[in-house]
Structures are given as structure tokens and as C-alpha cells.
């Protein structure tokens, strides 16, 4: 990837979405429809099951649409289980991890992209190599470490572990995005009298917005979904996260479909809303026009 051949993108005051030749609306809508059906199919089944009364769930004949839809499962989920707390815990953990990871990986990515120092490559490789081990092998040493730090059954412990495990990819990702930003833009800003800090805040940040959105989304979803660490390192409902909460609905001899499906639906709602806002970050940073400064 050569930055020198890339034209100065300060000139590019293009519309937010590059219009691609050959992409007319008709085939696209068909593809989108197919995609949406493929994605939503299983969730629709889940949502239907969640409003199916228990009596019909036990029925021998599998009907697809319940004859008496009822939202009782949601009421039971809220009153009889601590699942809402699990959602809150997951949200706290995931959002904090996003902040830590975006901050650290933006700094690290910028350093690894912009500065040439001894051991730079070694650091880059080492960051990658750290991802090689299956997490199951790291479980007990991490357990002991968290115990010694008094971070067991504690959201802080999960936040630190998740930050570490989502750092590698985010750092590489940020480095790639900073690589794409021509150094000339920063130099120009420095000549115009910006301090290094100002050029970082006013130039680098807006320009790496898609990278931040991508890294943030990744860190969020990793933390939201992670199961084995959360299961092992938490024991009370004050620290349990969504996947652990869901797993509790599967007993040795009872599977609480009502809780699993209603919990799955409830847990999907904040995610869906969050993404609809977050995806705005995936629109080119250039469009913000902040580059002019």
C-alpha cells in the first residue's frame, strides 16, 4: 500500500457515498432482500417462539404460528430471572471495552504507522502472535491472575480481559487506517500552526472515523458475545453477562424455551438500535469536511 500515489484527499469533496458504476437499484434490492431473509429467518422463528404460550410449546404437533400469542414469557423473564441485570452488565462491559480499545489502539496504531523505531516490526508481529492460543488454554492462568488482583466476579476483570483480547485486531486495523491517511495532510496542518495534539484531534480523528467505527464495533461484539471467560470468572448475578444468563436457561433436564427466546429478542434490541447509530461512523470521515482546518 503506497500512500504516495494516493491523491490528496483534501480535494475530494465528494458525496458521502461513492456511486459505483454498474450498481443500479434493481439487482441490489433483490440481493438485499435475499440477505435480509437469510439473516432474519432464524430470528423470526425465535420471536414467534417467544410469544408462543408454554402450553402450545409442549404440544405434540409442531405448528409454526401460535394460535394464542402471548407476551407472558417476557413478563416471567423480567420478574423471575435476573436477565435484565445481565443485559446491563453486558452493556457496561462492552461500552467500556470499546472506549479503552479504541483509545489504546488508536494511539498504538498511529505510533506503529507514523514512527519508525527499533523493534517496530517485532511489536507488530508479537501483537499478532498473542492471538494464536485457544482461549481455553489461557483460562486457568488468567483465573489465578484475576484472583490475585481481586478481580474475580467483577466487571472490571472482564473489561480488562476483553480489552486485551480485542486489542490485537484493533491495533492492526487502526494502523491500516492511519497508513491510508497521507502524511502531507498532517504536515500541512503543522505548517498552518496546529500543535501535534491539535492535528491529532482535528485531522487524524475525523479521518480515521471509519476505522474507529469498525474497531469499536468489533470490540463491542466480542465483549457482548464472549462466553467462556465470563462463565468462569463470574459467579453472582452482579457480574454475569448476557451469554452466561442465556446459558442458565438450559438445565440438565429442562430447557426454558420461553426464557431463551424472549431473552434472545430482548438482548437483540439494544444491539440493533446501537448499530443503526454506530453505522453512521462507517461513512467516510472526509465527508465531515473537518479536513479544511
Amino acid at each position: 500500500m503506497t500512500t504516495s500515489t494516493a491523491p490528496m484527499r483534501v480535494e475530494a469533496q465528494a458525496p458521502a457515498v461513492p456511486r459505483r458504476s454498474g450498481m443500479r437499484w434493481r439487482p441490489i434490492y433483490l440481493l438485499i432482500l435475499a440477505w435480509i431473509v437469510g439473516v432474519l429467518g432464524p430470528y423470526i422463528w425465535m420471536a414467534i417462539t417467544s410469544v408462543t404460550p408454554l402450553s402450545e410449546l409442549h404440544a405434540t404437533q409442531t405448528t409454526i404460528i401460535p394460535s394464542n400469542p402471548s407476551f407472558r414469557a417476557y413478563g416471567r423473564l423480567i420478574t423471575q430471572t435476573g436477565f435484565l441485570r445481565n443485559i446491563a452488565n453486558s452493556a457496561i462491559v462492552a461500552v467500556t471495552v470499546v472506549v479503552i480499545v479504541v483509545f489504546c489502539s488508536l494511539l498504538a496504531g498511529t505510533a506503529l504507522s507514523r514512527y519508525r523505531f527499533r523493534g517496530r516490526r517485532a511489536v507488530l508481529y508479537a501483537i499478532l502472535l498473542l492471538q494464536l492460543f485457544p482461549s481455553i488454554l489461557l483460562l486457568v492462568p488468567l483465573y489465578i491472575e484475576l484472583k490475585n488482583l481481586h478481580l474475580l466476579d467483577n466487571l472490571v476483570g472482564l473489561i480488562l480481559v476483553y480489552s486485551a483480547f480485542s486489542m490485537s485486531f484493533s491495533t492492526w486495523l487502526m494502523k491500516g487506517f492511519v497508513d491510508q491517511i497521507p502524511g502531507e495532510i498532517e504536515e500541512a496542518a503543522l505548517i498552518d500552526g496546529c500543535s501535534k495534539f491539535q492535528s491529532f484531534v482535528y485531522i487524524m480523528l475525523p479521518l480515521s472515523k471509519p476505522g474507529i467505527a469498525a474497531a469499536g464495533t468489533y470490540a463491542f461484539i466480542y465483549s457482548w458475545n464472549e462466553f467462556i471467560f465470563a462463565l468462569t470468572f463470574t459467579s453472582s448475578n452482579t457480574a454475569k453477562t448476557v451469554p452466561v444468563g442465556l446459558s442458565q436457561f438450559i438445565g440438565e433436564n429442562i430447557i426454558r424455551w420461553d426464557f431463551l427466546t424472549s431473552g434472545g429478542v430482548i438482548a437483540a434490541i439494544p444491539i440493533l438500535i446501537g448499530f443503526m447509530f454506530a453505522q453512521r461512523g462507517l461513512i467516510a470521515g472526509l465527508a465531515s469536511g473537518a479536513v479544511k482546518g
Partner: protein
Amino acid sequence: MLSPALVILAGFILYPAVNAIYVSLTDTNLLNLSAQQFVGLDNFIYMFGRQDFRDSLRNSAVWTFGNVTFQLVIGMIGALILNARFRGRGLIRGVVLLPWATPSVLVALMWLWILDPNLGLLNHLLRAVGLEQGKPIAWLADQHLALPTLMAIDIWQGIPFFAVMILAALQGVPTELLESAKVDGANAWQTYWRVVLPLIMPTVLITVILRLIWTANYFDLILVLTNGGPANATLTLPLNSYITSYKGGDFGGGAALGVVQAVLLAVLVAFYMRQVRRSEIA
């Protein structure tokens, strides 16, 4: 600027990783660590001689490369779709991420019942349109279908990841490069192949290499849906490592399997690094 990231990484990954390597050289029983003894390469020799090691090695290769290839190709098409302008794009961009953001426990259970041979929705549909006659298809219990079925589920879940990463990279492609390509008479395919792809390549490469590593290490889905069966047809290396460690109680042997996998992946990363150096990404 580097230090915050490095401190977190060293503290919570490097330290346990070094420990895992040590454990692979011992006869560790986690329940009785004081009896731990150094056994050299015995665990590796024992594992290499086993049929289930060879099975899991083969399954891991198919699982890892198959999943990532399909996720990459479909995810790239998805990114191009999401990058186009259409009505309700914000909503669609949120919706298609759902599979990626759903905990594995739930994904596994959803598919377990959709794929159930006797009661599942999929076989009902196939029957309704006349595609399935005779005995119902046992998607997860057939020795030839089980691994492809699991892979399809993982691909389904992994497509949005690639779509988002590539979508983000596409934002960095300067518009006037596309316009000038158009002026020069390039068609959409040529523009994509010659202009867009080289520019998003760094992001694609790092996404692919890390996805390969994660996919290789990911076994939650397999554990819930088939537990490696039928008859080890879906046993992968990390699942074998887990079963050997926690079910067999042989933590040294399990760690040895994990180390073998890490070494194989390291070779993959090294190969990737050579490519990276050649294209001056790092």
C-alpha cells in the same frame, strides 16, 4: 503511545500464553497441581500417534480455510451492497449485523432446532416444496453432512464481520480515483479489480489473517451442536484440546494440542508477513 496497549496485552495474554506452553511439557492434573511433573515432549509424541489427532487436524484445516474463504467472498459482496446508496440503508446496515452480534449459545440453539431432522423447520420446508423424500435428512448427525452444516452456520454468522471491515476500508477509497477510472473507460469490474481492491488490501489482509486464527480457535458452536461427533467427524484441534483437558483430565496433552495449533498458525502468520513485507504494508 504504544505502552497502554502493550501493558494490557502482556498482562492478560502473554503471561497466560507462556504458562500454556509450559503446561504442554508436563503431566498436569489441574486438580492436583503439586504432583505436576516435567515430561518433555511425551505429550506431543502421544498425541501425534492418535487417530483423533489426525482427524481433528484435517477437520480444522477444512473448517478454518472453508469458513474464512466463504465469509470473505460473501462479506465482500455484502460490503459493496452496503456501500451503495439505497432506501433504508441505515436500518439494513444494522439488521445484517445481527448474526455476528448474537451469542453462540443462542445461535447454536436456534440452528439446532431449525436443523432437527424430525421436527425442524428446514426439513419441513424442504418437504413442502418436494425436495426431500424418504427419510428426513439428519443434518448434524450424518458423517458427511455434519461438518459442512456447521460450517454453513459459522459462515452465516461471520459474513457481517467481513462486510463491516471491508465497508470501513471502502470509505478510504478516494472518489476521484473511481471517476478518473470511469473517464478512462474502465468498466465496473475493472475499476474494482484494479483500483479499489489494491487500496483496501491492507485491511482485507489483516482481517483475513486474524479471522483465520479466530476461526481455527473457535469451537463453541461445534461443542453445542455435535460435540465433535458423529464419530469425530466434526472434531477440530481446539475442541480436541478442550475435551482432552477437561473431559479426559489430561491437561498436558490438551495444552500440547493447543501448542501444535499455535505453531501451525504461526507458520501461517509468518507466511502472511512475507507477503506483507513484499507489499510494504508493515
